[in-house]
């Protein structure tokens, strides 16, 4: 057990180093094989570690690797914490990563920077695993920054495109803002508990006053909003879709963006100390879920819809964390990883078949041409829409049931969001696969082709997982559920589980109704329509003018300040000072060099006149 956990980390790092060191001597095929198999091995090890953990009594194993930082009272070991939470994260991160690596070997085939892509992807998996396995905040932060860096590199993978380059920068800067939050939380915690190791923090939570606890929670929330694309730092994620589609699936849907939720869940014993902090989290999550869902209804780019859908779904997770339903949050995170990866990879397959087209208005009628992508996408669509018995229904139901017990208003918001979710996903589905074939212009009258098996196989596996994902945490199977498995790691569990079966059934029916309303509405509106100004509000399409607001309040004043600095301070003050000194030295030099005429007699005259001055002075003194 103890020696297995480091192996989970080692394999992706090994793959990264192998590809890095061997460089161009490896063929693309070999690179893809190495990168995929190391992640696959990591998954196998995770499974073994999981099984071993199930039979381990303590279910909380710390694996010390080495002493990393030891200064005065600050002791940061490089150590791994293997517990139900981290192993669950490992399982789905490595599992989904394996599938997406496999998918990428075909999707990215022929790319100029094929090798670089897998280099980053392996490094990303390593960083993500470091993030979830770390036993202290500092090591988590290393992984946190590692995934951020990989995300930046992969978003701006096509860096010769301006939009990709600036999207990468946007993602990077938004994440920096969030990182400040995480750092502040670390500082506060160290100030009051003198440790940064999770288990030590949890055992000394009594040292945190309510105020400090709230501050820590809010700082953690800021960190989570950055990484997990929540209000107010959510709008980098849609732009991040500039990266290759497998990256969108892996990093910007399934794994990295859930890191914020993971962090909040990991710090649940601290969250338990601040009810106002938790309330803030719940509100942020609920509002984000709703806002992102409204935006998703008006997007025309298939990946943008999925991106806002991701933001919305993570909003659900954050909402669940806020009401203390950590098990539900992780449950939704895992199922979301399944079906959102499925949807992204399916959309990638669609985009692939149309030679790179992402505009849904130029799709339509693809069901006939994509015999494998279509049914798998269908499953993904039904899952996210919350139609039983797919995983999405159970996971979302779990979240909403917990929210209902906690706050009726947020529950209502969640239900509305559920309707919107079903609606925008159905719109996407209808526009893509149903209706007339509007893609002829794009494909130049060629028939779209189904993707190779390497790409469709992951779709099939993910589709199966999406169907069966609900089994992880069925509401009536309390003894053997994911929540039960995870519960030892939570510091605080919502007092909601004790709801009557009748109420639970009623809530489930509401969910089903919401899903069906959304489906029905979308089919009614979009069956024969491609564009509808009534239902595609510019306000929603333009992300609630969020970017404009940032631009007006922060962007333009700061740009103006920068212009002032560069035009006035830089040129006048700094350059002026430097050049002024230079010019004055040169001018005085020009003057003085005339004295050095090279005429010996002038020099001699100067000497004589100097002697004259001295003599005159002496005469004056004597007199």
């Amino acid at each position, binding site marked *: 057990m103890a020696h297995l956990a480091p192996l989970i980390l080692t394999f992706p790092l090994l793959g990264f180093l192998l590809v890095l060191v061997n460089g161009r001597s490896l063929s693309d095929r070999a690179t893809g094989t190495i990168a995929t198999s190391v992640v696959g091995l990591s998954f196998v090890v995770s499974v073994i570690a999981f099984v071993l953990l199930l039979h381990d009594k303590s279910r909380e194993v710390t694996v010390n690797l080495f002493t990393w930082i030891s200064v005065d009272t600050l002791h940061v070991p490089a150590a791994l914490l293997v517990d139900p939470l981290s192993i669950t994260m490992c399982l789905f991160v490595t599992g989904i990563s394996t599938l997406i690596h496999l998918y990428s070997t075909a999707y990215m085939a022929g790319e100029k920077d094929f090798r670089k892509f897998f280099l980053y992807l392996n490094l990303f998996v390593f960083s993500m695993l470091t993030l979830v396995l770390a036993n202290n905040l500092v090591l988590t932060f290393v992984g946190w920054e590692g995934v951020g860096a990989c995300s930046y590199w992969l978003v701006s993978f096509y860096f010769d495109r301006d939009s990709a380059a600036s999207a990468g920068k946007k993602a990077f800067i938004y994440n920096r803002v969030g990182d400040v939050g995480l750092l502040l939380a670390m500082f506060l915690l160290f100030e009051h508990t003198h440790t940064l190791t999770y288990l030590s923090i949890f055992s000394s939570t009594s040292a945190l006053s309510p105020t400090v606890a709230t501050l820590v929670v809010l700082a953690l929330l800021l960190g989570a909003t950055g990484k997990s694309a929540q209000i107010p730092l959510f709008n980098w994620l849609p732009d991040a879709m500039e990266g290759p589609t497998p990256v969108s699936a892996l990093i910007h849907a399934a794994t990295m963006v859930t890191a914020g939720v993971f962090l909040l869940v990991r710090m649940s014993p601290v969250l338990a100390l601040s009810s106002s902090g938790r309330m803030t989290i719940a509100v942020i999550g609920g509002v984000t879920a709703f806002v992102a869902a409204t935006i998703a209804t008006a997007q025309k780019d298939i990946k943008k819809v999925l991106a806002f859908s991701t933001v919305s779904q993570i909003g659900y997770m954050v909402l669940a964390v806020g009401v203390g339903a950590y098990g539900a949050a992780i449950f939704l995170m895992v199922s979301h990883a399944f079906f959102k990866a499925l949807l992204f990879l399916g959309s990638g397959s669609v985009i692939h078949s149309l030679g790179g087209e992402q505009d849904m208005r130029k799709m339509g009628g693809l069901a006939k041409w994509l015999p494998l992508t279509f049914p798998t996408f269908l499953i993904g669509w039904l899952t996210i829409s919350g139609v039983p018995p797919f995983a999405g229904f159970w996971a979302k139901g779990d979240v909403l049931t917990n929210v209902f017990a906690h706050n009726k208003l947020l529950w209502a918001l969640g239900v509305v969001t559920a309707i919107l979710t079903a609606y925008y996903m159905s719109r996407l589905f209808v526009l893509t696969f149903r209706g007339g074939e509007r893609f002829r212009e794009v494909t130049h009258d060629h028939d779209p082709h189904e993707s190779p098996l390497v790409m469709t196989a992951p779709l099939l596996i993910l589709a199966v997982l999406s169907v069966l994902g609900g089994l992880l945490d069925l509401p009536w199977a309390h003894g053997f559920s994911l929540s039960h498995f995870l519960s030892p790691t939570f510091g605080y569990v919502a007092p909601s589980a004790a709801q009557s079966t009748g109420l639970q059934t009623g809530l489930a029916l509401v969910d089903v109704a919401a899903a069906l309303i959304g489906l029905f509405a979308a089919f009614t509106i979009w069956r024969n329509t491609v564009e509808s100004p009534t239902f595609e509000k510019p306000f929603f399409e333009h992300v609630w003018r969020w970017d404009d607001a940032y631009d007006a309040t922060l962007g333009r004043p700061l740009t103006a300040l920068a212009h002032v600095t560069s035009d006035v301070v830089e040129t006048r003050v700094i350059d002026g000072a430097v050049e002024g000194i230079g010019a004055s030295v040169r001018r005085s030099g020009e003057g003085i060099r005339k004295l050095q005429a090279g005429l010996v007699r002038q020099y001699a005259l100067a000497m*004589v006149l100097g002697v004259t001055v001295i003599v005159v002075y002496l005469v004056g003194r004597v007199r």
Partner: protein
Amino acid sequence: MFATAYAIPDVLVFAAAALFILMGAIGVISMKNPVHSALSLILALLGVALAFLAQSADFLAAVEVIVYAGAIVVLFLFVIMFLGVDSSRHPHVEPLVGQRWLAAVGVLVTVAGVITLMVNSHWVSGVLSASTGGTPLATGYQNVTQLGDSVFTTYLLAFEATAGLLIIAVVGAVLLARRERPAEDDVEVEVEATRFDEPVAENDETTEEVEQ
């Protein structure tokens, strides 16, 4: 006025020395022809030698005449002749603006200032052997003895150092005045020849000086 205070022959000797010196010096700086300047220099040096003689520096007076008026001025004339008499230029046209005027003012003020200092300070009281009560310096043969004692005892180290200085001066002069040989000569031979053969021409004067 002088007669009442000073012995008339002494005054005459001083006047002659001063006359020689001033005439010679003014001749040096005013003659167009450098040969004339050199000859004027001899006159001034003879005046200095006379002043030396009058002040019990018999040996130095002799050296002044032999080395200065003899060897050095001959060397000057030798170089003048060697380079050709260069009187075509206009010594009275001053290219540097204000040079002559400033030089005159500076020199006059300095000399006047120094004289003023002498008059107004205790440097010179105008009385013989003012400060030390020591025996007056000897003249004639005794002077040479005294000077020799001083040079070879008190100032022995400085005397030895002058030997080194003269050697360096000779080597330097040879190297400077050496004519570049045509390129076809072997370089090594040239260096050898320069070292051992050349110091003949200008060495006459310097050897004499060393012997002094």
